C-alpha cells in the first residue's frame, strides 16, 4: 500500500503538468478511450486482439472500473473482473450465430502508467466456431464498452491461412461495429488473392 502511494505521488507532478496543459496545445488523445481491435479469423475460430488506451482526462474513470479497491495496483482478480466487464459489452456473431468469447491473454499496466495516457491494456479473446463450410461467411463484431468516452478501431488481420480470404469489410461510422465477409475454401486456392473492398 505504502509503495503504491509512493508510486502515485512520484507521478503526481507529471500528472498535474499534463492536466494543466491546454488541450489545443497538447492535443493527444487526452479525453477519449481508444479501443483498437484486430480480428483474426482462423479455420477453427476467431481471435480478438484488443488494445485499450485511456487518455489522461478519462484515465481515472477507466481505472475506477479496474482497480476496485483503489490500492494503486491491479490484482489478478481485478484484471479478470474487468475482462469480464469488457466481454459483456462485446457481441461476436458468425453467420448470425453468437460466438462465446473466452479470455486467452491479458496484460495490464499499472494505474500510474495508465494515468500518463501512454499505458495500454492488452487483451485477447478467442471464440471457437463450429466447423466452417466451404463458401462465403460473415463475421460481425459490436463493441459497446464505455461508449460515451470511447473511440474505436476495428480491423481484420491479414489471414494466416490461405484457405481464408477476406472479401469485404464494413464498419459503422465510429467503428464501434464491424462486419467482415470472407470465404473459406477447404483446399488451398491456386491464387492467394489479397482481400478486396467493393
Amino acid at each position, binding site marked *: 500500500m505504502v509503495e503504491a502511494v509512493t508510486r502515485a505521488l512520484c507521478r503526481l507532478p507529471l500528472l498535474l503538468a499534463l492536466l494543466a*496543459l491546454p488541450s489545443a*496545445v497538447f492535443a493527444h488523445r487526452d479525453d477519449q478511450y481508444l479501443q483498437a481491435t484486430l480480428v483474426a479469423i482462423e479455420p477453427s475460430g476467431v481471435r480478438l486482439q484488443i488494445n485499450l488506451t485511456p487518455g489522461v482526462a478519462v484515465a481515472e474513470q477507466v481505472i475506477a472500473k479496474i482497480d476496485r479497491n483503489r490500492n494503486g495496483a491491479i490484482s489478478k482478480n481485478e484484471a479478470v473482473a474487468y475482462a469480464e466487464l469488457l466481454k459483456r459489452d462485446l457481441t461476436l456473431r458468425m453467420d448470425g450465430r453468437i460466438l462465446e468469447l473466452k479470455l486467452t491473454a491479458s496484460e495490464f499496466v499499472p494505474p500510474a502508467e495508465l494515468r500518463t495516457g501512454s499505458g495500454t491494456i492488452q487483451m485477447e479473446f478467442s471464440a471457437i466456431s463450429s466447423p466452417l463450410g466451404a463458401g462465403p461467411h460473415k463475421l460481425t463484431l459490436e463493441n459497446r464498452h464505455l461508449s460515451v468516452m470511447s*473511440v474505436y478501431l476495428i480491423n481484420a488481420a491479414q*489471414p494466416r491461412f490461405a484457405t481464408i480470404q477476406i472479401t469485404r469489410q464494413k464498419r459503422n461510422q465510429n467503428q464501434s461495429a464491424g462486419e467482415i465477409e470472407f470465404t473459406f475454401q477447404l483446399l488451398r486456392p491456386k491464387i492467394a488473392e489479397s*482481400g478486396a473492398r467493393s
Partner: protein
Amino acid sequence: MNKKIAMVLIVLFGAGLNSFAQTNFAPGAPTAGIVAATKKFLATLDDAQRGKVVFDFKDEAQRKRWSNLPTAIFKRQGLRMGDLTKPQREAVLAVLAAALSPQGYEKILQIVEADEVLKQSGGQTIFGRDEYYVSFLGVPSITEPWMIQFGGHHLGLNITLAGEQRSLAPSHTGAQPAIYELEGKTVRPLGRETDKAFALLSSLNEAQRKQAILDFQMRDLVLGPGRDGQTIQPEGIKGSALTEKQREMLLDLAGEWTGILHEAVAKAKLDEMRKNIAETWFAWSGPTEKGSAAYFRIQGPTVIIEYAPQRLGGDATKHIHTIYRDPTNDYGVKWWKR
C-alpha cells in the same frame, strides 16, 4: 525547403555550418561513412555516457522503445540532446546527415523544430529540441548488423544497418504544429506528403474514388507505435486498378517516407515497391477537399504507410501522425534474425 531555412534549423538544433556542408556536398554515405560518423560521436563521450547510449543488439526492449508521445510521458533511454555539449550535438547530427538523404535530414530537423515551436507557444518544458534521444544497438560495423535510434515527440527513427543494406522500418514521423513560420518562411514538415496525397486523390475518377474512399472515420493510426508484428487486411483501391500515371504518383507519395534514408537504399526500396505496385493498395478516409484533415494508407507486400490527422485539441490539419512499416522486414529482421 530552401538552404537558408535548412541552415537556420541546423544552427538552432546545435550544430555548426560544417554539418550542413556535409549534407550539401556529401549527401548520405555508404555504411562506412555512417560507421565513421558514429564512431566520431562515440569518441566525444565519456565512459558513463557511452554506457547509456550503446545497447546490446539483442536488446528487444530498447529496440521497441519508441513512441509518438513526449519524453515526459513515454520514457526513452539513450542520451538526451539537451544533456550533450554543442560539439556532441553536432556529432549526433552528423550521424543523421550521413544516414539520411538531404530531404530526409531536413524533414527530421523540421519535425524537431515544430516541437520547439510547440514549447514556445505553450510554455511547456516537456517539449522542444532538447527532448530528443539518441541510442545505438550493437557495435557500428560495415558488416555486422547494428541500429541507430533517434526520437522524441512525434519522431521515432529506427535505422537498422546490415552491410550496405538499411531499413527505416518501423519509423514514426509526425508534427505539431504541422505548419509554422521560421525566419519569415512557412515550414511544413509533412507538407509534401499532404500535397501529394491530395493530388493522387484528385487524379482518381468517380469509380476509382468509390473503391479508394472508406465510408467510416479513421481516428488514429492502426499500426502505430506498439503494434509491431501486426498486419491488417488491405482496403481501398488496388494498384492494378490505377493508371500508370497514378501508380507513379502513389510511388512518389510513398517516396516521402522511403526517401528519408540515403538515396542508394531509398531507391532500392522504391524499386521493390514498384515490382509490387499491382498488389499495393491506397485507402482514404475523411474529407476530400484539398488541405482538409483526412487519413490515408498505402499498403503493399513490403510496405505499410499511414497518415492520420489528430482530431483532438484544435485544427487536425496542424497535428499529424504517420507510421512507416515493412511487414516483411521491420527492424531489418530478415538480414539478421535466424
